[in-house]
């Protein structure tokens, strides 16, 4: 099958695999944090659930929702990456991922982004950057919620 390079870059095997078999695709009944993400442009909706332990480390994470392959795969890969990480590190990865998706840095500049390189193809498609980052933005929002609660 002859596909354009752009299509091949965007729909890499790992993305297609996570789209078809999303990991941690479930509701967590008693999350410590949760948030809903919505991309009104394409109607993508997803919920992210988190369980942090007392050291602010991700014990469990999951998502459910409906979206395009890019947003679903991104959410799925995100859950596998942030598990067992401290939230500071999670945020650092998110910032790096965001910079990579928007073309501010190269995918191979940051070793932490190794498993996220598959998404570097979105930089050629401004309309799809939001798809790739929706899950991360939602996770970030869930964590922010907590900060408001803890500072009270």
């Amino acid at each position, binding site marked *: *099958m002859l*596909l354009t390079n752009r*299509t091949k870059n965007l729909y890499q095997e790992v993305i*297609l695999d996570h789209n*078809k078999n999303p990991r941690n695709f479930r509701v967590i009944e008693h999350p410590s944090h949760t948030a809903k993400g919505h991309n009104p442009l394409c*109607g993508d*909706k997803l919920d992210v659930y988190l369980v942090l332990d007392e050291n602010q480390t991700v014990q469990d994470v999951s998502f459910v929702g409906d979206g*395009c392959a890019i947003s679903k795969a991104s959410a799925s890969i995100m859950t596998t990456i942030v598990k067992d990480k401290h939230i500071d590190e999670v945020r650092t990865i998110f910032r790096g991922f965001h910079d990579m998706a928007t073309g501010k840095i190269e995918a191979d500049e940051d070793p932490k982004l190794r498993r996220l390189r598959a998404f570097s193809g979105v930089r050629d498609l401004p309309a799809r950057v939001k798809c790739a980052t929706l899950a991360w933005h939602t996770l970030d929002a869930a964590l922010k919620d907590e900060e408001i609660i803890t500072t009270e």
Partner: protein
Amino acid sequence: MSAPVTKQRATHYETPGRILDIRREFPILSRKVQEKPLAYLDNAASTQMPSKVMETITAYHEFHHSNVHRGVHQLSQEASDLYEGAREKVRRFIHARDTRQVIYTSGTTAALNLIAHSWGNSRVGKGDTILVSNMEHHANIVPWYMLAKRTGVQIKVIPILDDGTLDMDAFEAMLDPSVKAVCVNHVSNALGTVNPVRTIAGMCRERGIVSVIDGAQAVGHLKVDVQELDVDFYAFSGHKMHGPTGIGILYGKLPLLNEMEPFLGGGDMILSVSFDNITWNDLPFKFEAGTPPIAQAVGLGAAIDYLNGHDRTFLYDYEQQLLSYANERLAEVPGLTFIGTAPQKAAIVSFVMKDVHPHDIGTILDGEGVAVRTGQHCAEPVMDRYGISSTTRASMAFYNTFEEIDQLRDALLKVTELFDVTD
């Protein structure tokens, strides 16, 4: 990945020479996208302009431009003549009785908002009902909800059947004395359904109900005769009939327009102003406050000349052939389901594909040079009706070819292959 299922090839169609000639009048159609020939199948969003329309707009700017109805100088007179000449072209095009019934707006959306304000504000209130069909574009929903907020009028939804036709029995049953207006599109942008507007308007007229018809998707394709349809209001946009953006038309029956208050206030819409008293200008100027989109009106007139210069029955029949060809070819694509299969349809094909999100389809098709629309098509209630979040939509115009439909189908087969879709 499994090989694509290639069923028997459909009957081969040849794009007529007349259509190939027409294509040459639209320069944009020969450009490339992602190094592939562009297959522009997003005409329901906006149609392309022929050179003649662009030349007319340029000539207007190069030679005649000035403000209208204001100056005694030569240019102002010429600009006014062109602007009013275009209005006369519109009148003839939709067969309105009088140019006073042809009001320039910035588009369908503005025209529908105008009705909701100028007619709605003083005509409806608590205890009244406005019926809106389940297949409306947001432009024919939101202004009515805003009116409901202002006045307390109740909005009720006319249901649609599974194939995307309006449920006429349910509609008739809803026509109780509280109903003051019925808002329906002539052609649905999301489903392609052509609604029986003449029948609907007739049922309204018998009961003294105002009919508001959104003709945005109709005028570029069907022959529209507002007297024959006998509608109270009819709205459409220039950019969906090969004219420029920024111009649209509101047609209305004279008694209604005469009684309505203006929508926007400003220059041109008044006869006299003092701080004690203001007298509204006559129709249609009462509704045209401020400097209007003059070049765009002239462009719309040129688009009408363009359409009139062709055998519109031939163009319509050809579009219908494209529609049946698209139905045939896309049925060969594994896992594809059509949304909207009404017997009376414009050349619009909306569909979903098993396990593949329309957004991904749109991106992959773009990579193959095929421009389609994906999403909710500003018609979220239609998506809800079918329990889906979005569709992919290919919408055709008379300059599309059978080969472009093949290009669409081949691109869709690539999607099925990449995503491993089977029936």
